[in-house]
């Protein structure tokens, strides 16, 4: 898809969790970046648990791996009505 300039959203890159403030209202999308220390076993449950503390994960990806730390970027849902 064609590229345009991001209209907002410059984020820290220091490994700390970064959250964008959610607008007031029943439903909001929140952008989240965080790093988690991986434990033995499947990665998805660990990722879901880490993101679940911020909302319902809608879309996420591991965007970097530093040793045993996974860096995640995600958009989570807050206040979503049941489907």
């Amino acid at each position, binding site marked *: 898809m064609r590229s*345009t300039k991001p209209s907002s*959203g410059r984020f820290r890159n220091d490994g700390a969790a970064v959250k*964008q403030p959610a607008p007031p*209202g029943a439903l909001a*999308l929140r952008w989240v970046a965080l790093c988690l220390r991986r434990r033995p076993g499947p*990665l*998805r449950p660990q990722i879901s648990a880490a993101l679940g503390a911020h909302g319902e994960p809608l879309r996420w990806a*591991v965007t970097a*791996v530093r040793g045993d730390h996974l860096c995640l*970027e995600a958009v989570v849902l807050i206040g979503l009505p049941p489907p």
Partner: protein
Amino acid sequence: MAPDVLPTLLVVPTGVGCAIGGYAGDAMPAARVLAAASGCLITHPNVMNGAALYWSDSRIQYVEGWALDRFAAGDLALRPVRRQRLGLLLDAGMEEDLRLRQLQVADGCRASLGLDIAAVVSSEVPLEVCLEQGPSGASWGRLGHPDALLRAGERLRDAGATAIAVVARFPEDPAGEALAAYRQGSGVDPLAGAEAVISHLLSRHLRLPCAHAPALQPLPLQRGLDPRAAGEELGTTFLPCVLVGLSRAPDLLPLQPDSTPSWGDGAVLCPESIGAVVAPAGALGGEAVLASVERGVPLIAVDNPCLLQVTAEALALEQDGAVVLNASSYAEAAGLVLALREGLAPASLRRPFAGLAG
């Protein structure tokens, strides 16, 4: 599903600058060769959408990213269909000339391609798309009024639509450096992340096939345009590929744990049937790939440079028991898929060939 096919997932993550698949549907040739090799390819709109360019193939199932993730995780099955009744959802933030362009494309697809478009609705308020970029450089985005998107989708579903095409007004930056780089074949597409969020949100809410096209004003003619970006400069909208893709997108069938599915006769693609997953070697950290690997599906990691370095080695996938096959190109990946389909051990096609120990 014919017993001799090997249902294969093809994932090319959106908004991470993949050399193949980071532009205007430029992973379509890879999808076509993998579809021929597997007999059944399940892939997502980022692979198949080339604005005015598209390819329809009964061996390719067009599945939006949220649904693809859920399919890979075992939460959904897919039922191929002859056609879907499309609903067209237009952002109220679109100018009248852009709105008219979308409607004319939809009419053109009805008249010239025979597509069934059941209804058109506008959101109650502008959706207010904003674009963002993460620390990795990957593109993301959000909506100011996600609830308006969901309500408009519900109206289309209630009007009989079985699949939904969304057109949202995106911010313009015709003189920007990012756009210039993209047209010259470099950089990351900052629109893609927001597009994925829109279609994920609607798919998750409605459990219907959904896909998105941005609304933007046409650009001035440019010489030296990268061929991979050219598909988006042939027309005045990005909608044709979305309507064509959705017109035969499979139904999404929820699967309940520990229950026997009862969806009647007819071919259904179940998650258990997935025989391989193909993804860029440096972008293996998405849900569809990780879910597939955790379910024991062989992973074909293709050399397709992008801005991420999330490799099988970095994720220690093989240490966790995953089967990882490396391919230097999508042509080689197709050969590996064909080998799996034929029941060949892929190692037998490579040299040196080690003897059995013991």
